[in-house]
């Protein structure tokens, strides 16, 4: 969808190029995060796409069409643009801000106003309360939400975002990032996203492009960048805890042992021990009549004891949902001092379990293969 082909930029008065022969291909509907230290050329690269900066050489194609062939304002109207300082126009209301591009594109007024209200709904801002407010009457987080809505108002296929959440406090940043990802799942824009924060990149990106001194040094999925950094620079930049960061990229479902053995309240402890020994497990989960996780028994506690599971089980310290990421899972394990967790779905049904050993094995797989 967005293709950069040997793109370079040398600013006048400078001998070294700010961007040096960068080639990059962003598939439709994906988020590509341009990552690197300040002065690495990532912002320059992004601004060449909507020609706020004209490339010195090379070509940039959007949907197969060279951006140099477009009328520059037409090009920009077809590309959403979000900047760190947000840049909402203080003289315009939220509604007017959102409708700027639809208005200059000559959309029907009723249609664009309706769209503004729908967009506000999408980020859980009550249209009635917010449409006619001025930017100065909004919090920073609300302003940035509007900034994003303004960029997608005319439904451009491509979005450029220049450190869009950089100026927002950490708590709200996480909320807005999550919100944005949820929105992106619906709108499927092709996005170039500039960031200097590896954690943000890992969270947002389908692919990460790492820049150094104007060169693209690695372009790959977050997991591959974390697992197989191409150079010392990349591994230093992504940090010594890069393997831990990979935990965020994997969900409980990836590491879960599905459809595990289980016992019912009426089973005897003897049967439970037999099942555990058969599977080589140290503990087993007790489920209710419809399959809800109710508790567990350990091999140690059950061996040699009599009676039913229903009378002798212990309660589960906690459970986890399959869609949570492994970082949350590990953190939950550490908090409850356990090395395994029972996974339950929204209805509380027991669907599987995860263990710390399983995580280690999963994370190291990529190294064994490589």
């Amino acid at each position, binding site marked *: 969808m967005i293709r950069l082909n040997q793109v370079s930029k040398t600013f006048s008065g400078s001998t070294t190029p700010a961007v040096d022969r960068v080639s990059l291909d962003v598939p439709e509907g994906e988020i590509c995060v341009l990552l690197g230290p300040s002065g690495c050329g990532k912002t320059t690269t992004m601004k060449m796409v*909507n020609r*706020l900066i004209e490339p010195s050489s090379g070509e940039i194609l959007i949907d197969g069409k060279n951006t140099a062939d477009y009328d*520059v*304002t*037409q*090009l*920009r*109207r*077809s*590309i959403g*643009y979000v*900047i760190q*300082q*947000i*840049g*909402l*126009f*203080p*003289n*315009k*209301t939220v509604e007017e801000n959102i409708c*700027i*591009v639809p208005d*200059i594109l000559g959309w029907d007024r009723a249609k664009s106003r309706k769209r503004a209200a729908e967009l506000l709904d999408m980020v859980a801002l009550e249209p009635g309360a917010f449409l006619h407010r*001025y*930017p*100065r009457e909004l919090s920073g987080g609300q302003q940035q939400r509007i900034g994003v809505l*303004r*960029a997608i108002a005319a439904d451009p296929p491509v979005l*450029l975002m220049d450190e869009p959440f950089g100026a927002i406090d950490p708590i709200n940043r996480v909320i807005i990032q999550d919100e944005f990802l949820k929105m992106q799942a619906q709108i499927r824009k092709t996005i170039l996203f500039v960031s200097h924060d590896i954690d943000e990149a890992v969270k947002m990106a389908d692919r990460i492009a790492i820049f150094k001194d104007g060169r693209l040094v690695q372009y790959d999925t977050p997991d591959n960048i974390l697992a197989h950094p191409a150079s010392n620079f990349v591994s230093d930049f992504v940090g010594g805890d890069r393997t831990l960061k990979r935990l965020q990229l994997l969900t409980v479902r990836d590491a879960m042992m599905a459809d595990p053995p289980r016992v019912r309240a009426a089973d005897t402890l003897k049967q439970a021990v037999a099942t555990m020994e058969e599977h080589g497990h140290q503990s087993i989960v007790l489920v209710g009549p419809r399959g809800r996780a109710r508790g567990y028994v350990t091999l140690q506690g059950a061996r040699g004891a009599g009676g039913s599971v229903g009378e002798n089980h212990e309660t589960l310290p906690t459970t986890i949902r399959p869609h949570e990421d492994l970082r949350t899972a590990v953190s939950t394990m550490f908090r409850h001092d356990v090395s395994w967790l029972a996974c339950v779905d929204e209805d509380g049904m027991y669907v599987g379990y995860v263990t710390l050993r399983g995580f280690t094995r999963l994370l190291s797989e990529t190294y064994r293969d490589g």
Partner: protein
Amino acid sequence: MADGMLPMLAQMRRNGAYLAVFLLGAWAWAGGLLPGLLDKWDDIAFLGWQHVTLVAISGGAAIVVGVPLGVLLTRPRFRRAGDIALQFLNIGATIPTLAVLALSMSLLGIGDSSAIFALFVASLLPIVSNTMAGLRAVPPHLLEAARGMGLSPRHMLLQVELPNALFVIYTGIRTALAINVGTVPLAFLIGGGGLGELIFTGIALNEFGTMLAGAIPTALLAVLIDFILAQLQFWTIPRGVNPLR
């Protein structure tokens, strides 16, 4: 608490002002001043109209020329020229208006036209410099956002730059017209007419009443024009960028 106090204070101040005006009027009436002024009503009306005409023509021309000139001098291609112009404007602002009048007279001779020209020049400077200052103070990231969204230079000017600079531009116009109204009496000295005729005649003949017949309407006119502009400023600038609202 502060919210409750402010309107109350404003109310008290207004009432005080009404009282002061009333007392002043009573005193003026008793001292024979007001009856004296009423005797000169025809003169006041005639010269007052002349006065207003001078302000309207010279001030109007200064606005019509000054704002576009300020806009032009802030366009990227005139950036250098703008810097230089701003230097000249700053120097120009230090020249006393009486000197401007005298210079204008030496150029255009005695009469209305030289008075209007001098008033125009004196009003032009604050309008141009404030227009430029207002436009240059628009935060660069607003312009970047506007450019990045594909606004044409014309759209940017009309939808982003001017609205955000409007408050400062208005301030320049108010300053300019205050100077203008206050300078018109001096224009009498180069044959411009207006209420200055009464003021200077009063001084020359040592007629206190005649002088006041020129001075008081001049003062009222200045207050009135500023009041009208303040109202315009209050109501026409969008609430989001209007520090008064």
